[in-house]
């Protein structure tokens, strides 16, 4: 139980990768805040699965793209539970389309949720971490932030932006023993990827040396490492979880 007595907040924790991260952190002993915005039933289901496994959690509704709402909600969590020790900026949306036809709104909403949301939540959560001289911020980026992907100029820009945010924050907060890292998932089986046509999914698999899609649990394992004291000396890094489809620089 490496995370006993710790409080974690996972944005976008109701489904997919976020749900797997919530469950994993709870299984390590953390009290996990499951943030969601649109789907209370899914968030309740995540909580039910955590509790069924003997873990502890709570659900918290706010839109990470709504700066004030996010700050208020995080303040409330800090005053109720005394602390946030681990923040996982996982909330993400897609509004795919070729750039020639992409609406400005599609750019703004993806950047607001995926990049600005991480900035706002981190800003609200970092102060008690700095005071405690211990904290973990983990941003969920994506392989497309490194490789690019046609149809995803907005999403890949936001995900690449998270890497820069991570490195600068890591430098600013290192003196307070708060580490900031990224996890960059590749092709992971979730609602987000289930929508792709079968032939596209098959074609993608041929690009993956390990020959299969990843699971949300694979990503949760990387987050668990970065959240634990096993990663004390790791900051400003990106941990790629992609079956080898991209091997870094």
């Amino acid at each position, binding site marked *: 139980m490496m995370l006993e007595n710790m409080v974690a907040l996972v944005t976008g924790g109701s489904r997919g990768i976020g749900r797997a991260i919530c469950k994993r952190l709870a299984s390590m002993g953390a009290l996990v805040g499951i943030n969601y915005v649109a789907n209370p039933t899914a968030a309740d289901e995540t909580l039910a699965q955590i509790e069924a496994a003997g873990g502890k959690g709570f659900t918290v509704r706010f839109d990470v793209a709504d700066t004030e709402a996010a700050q208020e909600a995080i303040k409330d969590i800090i005053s109720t539970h005394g602390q946030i020790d681990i923040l996982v900026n996982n909330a993400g949306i897609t509004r795919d389309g070729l750039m020639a036809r992409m609406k400005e709104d599609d750019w703004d909403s993806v950047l607001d949720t995926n990049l600005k949301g991480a900035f706002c939540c981190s800003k609200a959560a970092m*102060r008690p971490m*700095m*005071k405690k001289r211990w904290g973990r911020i983990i941003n969920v980026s994506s392989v497309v932030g490194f490789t690019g992907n046609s149809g995803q100029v907005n999403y890949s820009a936001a995900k690449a932006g998270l890497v820069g945010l991570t490195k600068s924050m890591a430098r*600013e*907060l290192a*003196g*307070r023993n708060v580490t900031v890292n990224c996890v960059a998932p590749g092709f992971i089986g979730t609602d987000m990827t289930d929508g792709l046509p079968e032939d596209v999914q098959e074609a993608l698999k041929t690009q993956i040396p390990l020959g299969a899609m990843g699971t949300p649990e694979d990503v949760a394992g990387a987050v668990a490492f970065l959240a634990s004291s096993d990663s004390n000396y790791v900051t400003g890094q990106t941990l790629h979880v992609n079956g080898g489809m991209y091997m870094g620089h």
Partner: protein
Amino acid sequence: MAVEDKMIDIIVEQLSVDRDKVVPGASFVDDLGADSLDLVELIMAMEEEFDVEIPDEEAEKIVTVQNAIDFVAKIQD
């Protein structure tokens, strides 16, 4: 005196320094070993404690213990 005592409490806590080093003429950076992040945290702690907002251009002028005490005394008038 209350303001001064409170201010010294904040400085002692934020910068983890001995109380007897927190004299009016002490510079946060040169005498009390503060770095830039310490200064930001100190300003944020002042904002919280005294329920005020300190704009960046005011914050930049707060470089000694006396500056901080004077600033808080001024805004509380």
